């Protein structure tokens, strides 16, 4: 504990000192400590989330000043998380891999409606398709908020994906009504990870957002490369033995056909090859008189 942090703590009332001590214990008991944004999550939902995460992950909510004190008291690099303590946040502790933590939190997010006056956390899009709403004034409301809409085949259709609000803009009353009518829930509500300090390393959400498809591609590429090496270096494995056999057979066949080796195994192919050749040559002969009737065009 730094001398400065100790001095600050000494001036705190008893209950705050206990709370900080408790937070410090939490912070010290996990490999990874993160700061999560909990703004906009109703308390009942937050309780449910806390319960879902337990026991692999612990969520602590406290006054921001106390969170800052506790982080500073633990020091050892974790105090760098204090820059993320602002607004409604909580601390999250886990012994899970931070990448797994991020994934878990992202997966637990649920869609929610957005209210008039709220700021769009992302672009809001009304997707192309049949709205299921009968023809009426709603088509005008859609067009009013910027959606490409018209009446087709007895109902109101959105004719193309329409971005009706950009990230950071405020939701109008009209838009909120339209979204509600369509059942569009453009917000993702959940614990939003701002940063994680894990075993000496600070991770941003961008660092933790792994591209699973890219890893899958890497796995496939690695497997394909190993197969290639096994076959090309002729190191047979259970997985490549049949490929090597097929390759060897193909080689023998290629040699056999090129050399026109009179082998019973090749007789069919040699006859076919000769036939193909004679046809190819006949195709170059443009005098029908020179060809048998069957080949004249």
């Amino acid at each position: 504990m730094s001398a400065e942090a100790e001095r600050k703590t000494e001036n705190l009332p008893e209950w705050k000192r206990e709370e900080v001590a408790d937070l410090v214990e939490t912070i010290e008991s996990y490999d990874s400590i993160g700061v999560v944004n909990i703004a906009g999550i109703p308390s009942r939902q937050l309780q449910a989330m806390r319960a879902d995460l337990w026991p692999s992950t612990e969520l602590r909510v406290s006054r921001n000043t106390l969170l800052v004190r506790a982080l500073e008291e633990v020091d050892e690099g974790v105090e760098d998380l204090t820059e993320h303590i602002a607004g409604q946040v909580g601390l999250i502790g886990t012994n899970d891999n931070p990448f797994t933590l991020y994934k878990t939190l992202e997966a637990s997010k649920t869609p929610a409606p957005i209210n008039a006056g709220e700021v769009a956390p992302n672009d809001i899009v009304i997707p192309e398709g049949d709205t299921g709403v009968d023809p009426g004034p709603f088509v005008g409301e859609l067009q009013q908020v910027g959606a490409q809409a018209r009446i087709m085949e007895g109902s109101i259709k959105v004719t193309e994906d329409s971005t009706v609000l950009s990230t950071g803009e405020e939701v109008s009353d009209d838009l909120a009504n339209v979204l509600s009518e369509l059942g569009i829930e453009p917000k993702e509500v959940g614990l939003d990870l701002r940063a994680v300090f894990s075993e000496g390393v600070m991770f941003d959400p961008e660092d933790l957002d792994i591209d699973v498809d890219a890893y899958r591609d890497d796995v496939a590429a690695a497997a394909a490369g190993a197969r290639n090496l096994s076959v090309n270096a002729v190191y047979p494995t259970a997985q490549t033995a049949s490929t090597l056999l097929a390759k060897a057979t193909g080689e023998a066949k290629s040699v056999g056909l090129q050399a026109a080796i009179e082998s019973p195994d090749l007789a069919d192919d040699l006859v076919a090859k000769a036939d193909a050749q004679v046809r190819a040559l006949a195709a170059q002969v443009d005098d029908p008189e020179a060809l048998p009737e069957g080949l004249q065009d």
Partner: protein
Amino acid sequence: MEYVYAALILNETGEEINEDNITGVLEAAGVDVEESRVKALVAALEDVDIDEAVAEAAAVPAGGAAAGG
């Protein structure tokens, strides 16, 4: 490939595909005929239905591979 061509000429004309006939065709073309290849060819073709082999090959259009590529 000339040995195979010779056999196919005989096939078209309805002559028997035997060593003498193949040798005859090839010699007429100035080939220095190797008896062993003629023997091997006749043996190899013994169980082959040439017309069928040709028909199957014909079923694949010339340039069939190109279509695949």
